[in-house]
């Protein structure tokens, strides 16, 4: 089942799933999918299926963690036990704890935290199915869920990875490319501010390759940004139609 494919890129320059180097996987975004959450988003990117929910601003819990001058953003990235090939224990792994931290830090610059002192905002991310690039899809979904919750933001945050597969720099790595490929560079961006809010990398890249991977990821982010805004608009145009 987990056989390594021989070639990740064929003679025509197409990837395992027939994509070109700079092509994104199909993306579907839905806003307002959970009725109990203040904001919620469902995203599919390739075989990734992820739910993000936002609660708050609400009373900070635990209370002593509240800050007098701003709200506290809390974030939990969590993978369902059935989201990967071999069952993942539901207890938070070290990877999930690290990802929760970097995702939170990628969202924080976008929020006017100082508008809601002494409160807390919770972002919960549940990965229902993982297919490589879950942290990026999670950020795209979580930022949109924050907007759906009506939290004032400087810009949406959108994320996408680029990496190196065989000898090419490619966009939006899927699971196999991520595992067998040479490098993975996830990037989160606030497109209107041209601000990178998440940047990680593993693998080996020359400085020039690294730069082109970051730039390719930024281009990918900008494409997803359009879909993100479209999804948000869709929710409210639909709501309007119902009212009428």
């Amino acid at each position: 089942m987990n056989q390594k494919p021989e070639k990740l890129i064929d003679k025509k320059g197409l990837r395992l799933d027939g994509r070109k180097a700079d092509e994104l996987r199909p993306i579907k975004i839905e806003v307002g999918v959970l009725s109990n959450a203040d904001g919620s988003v469902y995203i599919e990117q390739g075989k990734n299926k992820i739910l993000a929910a936002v609660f708050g601003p609400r009373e900070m819990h635990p209370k002593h963690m509240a800050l007098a001058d701003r709200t506290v953003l809390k974030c939990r990235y969590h993978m369902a036990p059935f989201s990967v090939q071999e069952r993942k224990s539901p207890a938070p792994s070290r990877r999930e704890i690290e990802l929760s931290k970097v995702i939170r830090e990628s969202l924080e610059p976008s929020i006017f935290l100082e508008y809601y002192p002494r409160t807390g905002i919770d972002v919960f991310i549940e990965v229902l199915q993982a297919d490589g690039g879950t942290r990026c899809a999670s950020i795209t979904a979580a930022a949109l869920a924050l907007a759906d919750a009506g939290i004032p933001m400087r810009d949406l945050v959108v994320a996408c990875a680029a990496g190196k597969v065989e000898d090419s720099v490619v966009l939006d790595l899927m699971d196999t490319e991520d595992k067998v490929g040479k490098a993975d560079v996830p990037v989160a961006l606030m497109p209107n501010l041209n601000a990178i809010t998440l940047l990680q990398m593993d693998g080996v890249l020359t400085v020039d390759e690294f730069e082109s991977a970051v730039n390719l990821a930024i281009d990918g982010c900008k494409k997803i940004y359009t879909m993100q805004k479209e999804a948000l608009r869709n929710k409210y145009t639909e709501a309007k139609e119902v009212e009428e």
Partner: protein
Amino acid sequence: MASVITRVKQKQIEQLIAKGKRLDERGLTDYREIKLEQGIIERAEGSARVLLGKTEVLVGIKVEIGEPFPDTPNEGVLTVNAELVPIASSTFEPGPPDENSIELARIVDRGIRESKAIDTTKLCIEPGKKVFVVFVDVYVLNHDGNLIDASALAAMAALLNTKMPNYEIEDGEVKITSGNTPLPMNRHPITVTFAKINDKLIVDPWLEEEQVMDARLSIAIDDDCNICATQKGGRGYFSPKQVSEAARLAVEKAQEIRKKLDW
């Protein structure tokens, strides 16, 4: 890590940096003095202590026999853990590793793993059954900023100092024999951390600079000047231009340190 810094000091640091100066009189891209000592814990298979200015990190390596991961049956296992022990700072509390120590351990791990610093194929005893497991335990003794670079340096120094036990296989049982061999090492990654303060990049932030920084960026560089790991941290952001600037400067700084340490 809760931290408090007065507004006056914050302003002072920011204004100095705008003028290209720092409170401790370093240039914006200068490291603090690096002191390195190896083999100071006799019970450990390898150890090293690094002083980066007043930041002090001790790394101990234990090598044990264990099972390989199913997807890499012929390779040894690397495990990195970091402890922010309460003696190192008034802001560190006892208890299980928090997100800061987990992030620190994973950044150090990524630098070593992705650069293939250890030749893990030489750590296999019996394919699929027994391999050497290398435990890297990062112990922060004094926190004065830039734990990432200090820990990465100390971990590499300790690995370079590590001796594996010799062994024989007798009736399918592994028997440890006398003597030892150095841990097979291929590469020497060096991690360079930047802080962004007032839209300027500085290298090797110390504690007070970390307390006022908007964001930080760590970049690991291998022996061929390739990038093998990066991590952005903190509540702020970087422009794409700053990321490129940091990547190029990291290569320069890593080479400087490599020369100094003769790695």
